[in-house]
């Protein structure tokens, strides 16, 4: 159980919880909710976003948003 922001590129993980309801709300509408498997495809250095892939669709999460997602590496 680690924050999403700590995962390395290429790691697949299962979303366990999303901390604030506001972020959870938006993630849910973008197609990611608790229990989904996501793949980290890029991390931009300099405190840049984490980019996830789910079902071939890419999602960019600002670093602080990525802190709010607790995941379990698969």
């Amino acid at each position, binding site marked *: 159980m680690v924050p999403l922001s700590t995962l390395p590129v290429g790691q697949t993980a299962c979303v366990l919880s999303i901390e604030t309801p506001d972020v959870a709300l*938006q993630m*849910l509408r973008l197609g990611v909710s608790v229990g989904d498997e996501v793949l980290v495809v*890029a991390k931009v250095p300099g405190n840049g976003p984490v980019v996830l892939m789910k079902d071939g669709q890419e999602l*960019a999460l*600002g670093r602080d948003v990525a802190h709010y997602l607790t995941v379990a590496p698969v």
Partner: protein
Amino acid sequence: MATHPLPSPPLSVTGLSPEPPVTPSPEAQGKDPQGQDPQYTLVFWPRQIPPEAITPDLPITSVAMVGNPNVGKSLLFGQLTGHYAQVSNLPGTTVDLLRGMIHLPLLDQKVHLVDTPGVYGLSGLNEEERLAQDAVESVDVVLNVINALTFDRDMFLTQQLLDHGRRVLVVVNQLDELAARGHKQLDLQSLSDHLGVPVVACIATKNLGVAEIAQMLPFARRGLPTPELGGFSTDTLIAIERDGDPVRRLEVYGLRRQYLKKLVATVLTATDTSSSGSAGRMRFSQVLGLALLHPLWGTLGVILTLLALYQIIGVWIAGDLVDLLEGRLMMETVNPALVGVAAKFLSPKSWVFTLLFGEFGIITMTLQYVIGVMLPLVIGFYLYMAILEDCGYLPRLAVLFDGILSRIGLNGRAIIPMILGLGCVTMASVSTRMLTSERERTIASVLMAVTIPCSAQLGVILALMAVTSGLWGWVAFIAILLVIFGVMGRVLHVMIPGQSTSLLMDLPPLRWPQWGNILKKTWIRSKGFLWDALPVFVMGSALITVAQLTGLMGVLEKGLSPVVRHLLLLPGESSQVFLMGMIRRDFGVAGLYTLAKSMTHLQILTSLVVITLFVPCFASASVIWKERGPREGIIIVLLSWAIAFLAGGVVAYGLGWLPL
């Protein structure tokens, strides 16, 4: 259409025939979306509804088109109404509602069609969602467009519309793309059964299924709401989702999503294992898309993009083409000929002659600068931007710049209005609405108004650089602007209370630019530029001539010239250029063009920096005023004056050592 035999017309003109609109042919589904198969079914009707119940649901006077970003709504809107909407591969491009009329063959009447900004749901989370929600509430029927490739995500909005009791017609677009990927198949009949509303299959880029949408619209109906949300009345649900308590809202969303997971699993299935091998393989566009986010390749991408911009706009267009048009054509051929002809009818000493053909003559100046210098540059610029926009590169830039922009209180999304601002600040000021918070909108508006040169202006700057200081001058100019951008952004970030939002966006896939699309967009924007610039130019040159003839110009110049001479180390006459810049920034730079021949390279750089930072042009100032209110408007203008002269002074006194 001749190569795509459509199923027999689904509805007779009376439309009240007891037969279902179309007999679904299961063997055709997901098999050949190219339309070669004459059996390919485009219209699906929920099987549980008995044929005798199929009647148009009336009245229908207005329709709202709703869908996630990047599903192909804008293109469809154009096809349905015959109007052109700006299409781009980028979230947040439709910030205003577009309206058109659509003809419904069944009723033989025209009804209103409203295109709404792309949204992932109707939750009032930002300006776009509120706009879309208001549109949905003000119409009878919702035309919900879904992209087959992002089916899972798009279904959230669809189910939300059904839960809210709207009359819905669902259109599934880009079925050809799904088939091309080959590892998933969408059962549209089953989808229609599950939703309880008619579904139309569509490939908008091939104009397939578009006529069926117009035919089926009167049959839009209330569908099956989420069973798990049965405890809520429609009104309660709408209230909770619009601006309810986040925790309750999340509860509703969670239940809906869970229901959708099951629904999607039934409707969207993996095809047989023989093709599943290719499912794991990445497509070229995906590999490239990821490379553009890589620290090394991504940076390289940005540098190449800028170098290409410099080569195309700065060297080829601003150098060679403008030389030909402005120098050879306008200054050496057309203008002397016109002046020669005019001199036969008018005395060159008369004020009418000076007004029309003098140094700042309405006709001579407009021809020389608008047609000779700006138009080729603006067209080149818009073309380049349209290509970047259309292939989906801008959202990736947003990701790359998020870390940097977050230090000045913005997130990566703000790069998009900034880049559009390079085209025209007037247009981009409106697009700051796509930013989430008021705070971000203020920061972005101020930075854009002050530090970002617009394409017409940048064009003249590049043209000037091409004949004087070249690449180094350009680098110095950009570096100065970036420093001011950074410092100002930081100050605003610290000074403005509140918190900015973080980046959370989906990245549309990269694609080959679609030329028809790009040329249309370039044409419309360039036309818009001419429309904006011409009257101001005509008025501006008239004003300057009148001011010169009456001696007013001399007085103003005298007043400003000590500042110009002592603070900026420029010749006194250049104060005229700054006065011109107040009317339109590019107008000012155009004035500089003539004066530059007698200036040193450092003086040119100083004047360019001042005039770039100087007041936004009249048109953009009025838009900023409208968007941001009078208080902020006045502050922006005063601030840009102060910063412009201050920065100019620093350049004049501090950068003498540059190898320009």
